[in-house]
């Protein structure tokens, strides 16, 4: 448990630092690369919470697919590869105040309500063979079958819609 806590805090510190780079760096590509670090850290936190299937999906979908899309978007919109002072609003402090207020409210609520709730030592759900992946697949294909199908159709229609929107010959 101690080792898990040490890893948690190390990964969390890296994630927060990289997230700050994402929202403050003037170089778009550097911000995108920092976002990859955040996604990898999130995957590591999933592993700490024994959600290994979600961690794998995170790496495949976010780092593998979404970040490639983002980099394509950066290149196709020819955002200047390099320093650009025009990446942040003049009134960025409004966002800072909002974020700090939100952090205060959420931090107070979380500490007040979940201050001492422990997590179970062994986070595997031992319904099927002691692995969370088997439990996830069982849940998706029985209890959550209809939401799963709806999300498949949503993904298909969204991607077809994206192609139609971005197509040139209209």
């Amino acid at each position, binding site marked *: 448990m101690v080792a898990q*806590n040490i890893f948690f805090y190390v990964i*969390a510190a890296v994630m*927060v630092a990289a*997230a700050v780079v*994402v*929202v403050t760096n003037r170089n778009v590509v550097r*911000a995108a690369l920092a*976002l990859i670090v955040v*996604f990898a850290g999130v995957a590591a*936190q*999933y592993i700490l*919470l*024994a*959600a290994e*299937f*979600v961690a794998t*999906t*995170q790496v495949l*979908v*976010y780092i593998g697919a*979404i970040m490639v899309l*983002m980099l*394509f978007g950066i290149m*196709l*919109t*020819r*955002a200047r590869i390099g320093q650009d002072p*025009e*990446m*942040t*609003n003049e009134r*960025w402090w*409004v*966002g*800072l105040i*909002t*974020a700090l207020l*939100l*952090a205060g409210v*959420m*931090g107070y609520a*979380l*500490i007040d309500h*979940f*201050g*001492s*709730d*422990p*997590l*179970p030592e062994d986070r595997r*759900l031992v319904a099927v063979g002691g692995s*969370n992946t088997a439990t*996830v697949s069982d*849940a998706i294909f029985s209890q959550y079958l209809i939401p799963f199908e709806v999300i498949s159709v*949503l*993904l298909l229609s*969204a*991607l077809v819609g*994206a192609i139609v929107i*971005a197509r040139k010959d209209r």
Partner: protein
Amino acid sequence: MLNQFLLLGAVLFCIGVYGVIARKNTVLVLMSIELILNAVNINLIAFGAMNGDIAGAVFALFVIAVAAAEVGVGLAMVLIIYRNRSSVDLDDVDSMRG
């Protein structure tokens, strides 16, 4: 402890909110939205681990799928805005300003 995961999620969420408000470039705003969605996913998984319920992981997977759809449509819209206006600056997209 459950709280450390929830607080990490809250911090990432707030950084994402700052990015959405403060950034001018549309692609960077989309990246900040991804930060927010990831923060929410950490919370879902942490609550699932606390309750010993797999629903948290299942809903995190659904959020990841919706995020993929959102990025696809969002970047298509960014591309068409860039094609029409030669700029992805959010301040230039003001035709509906009252």
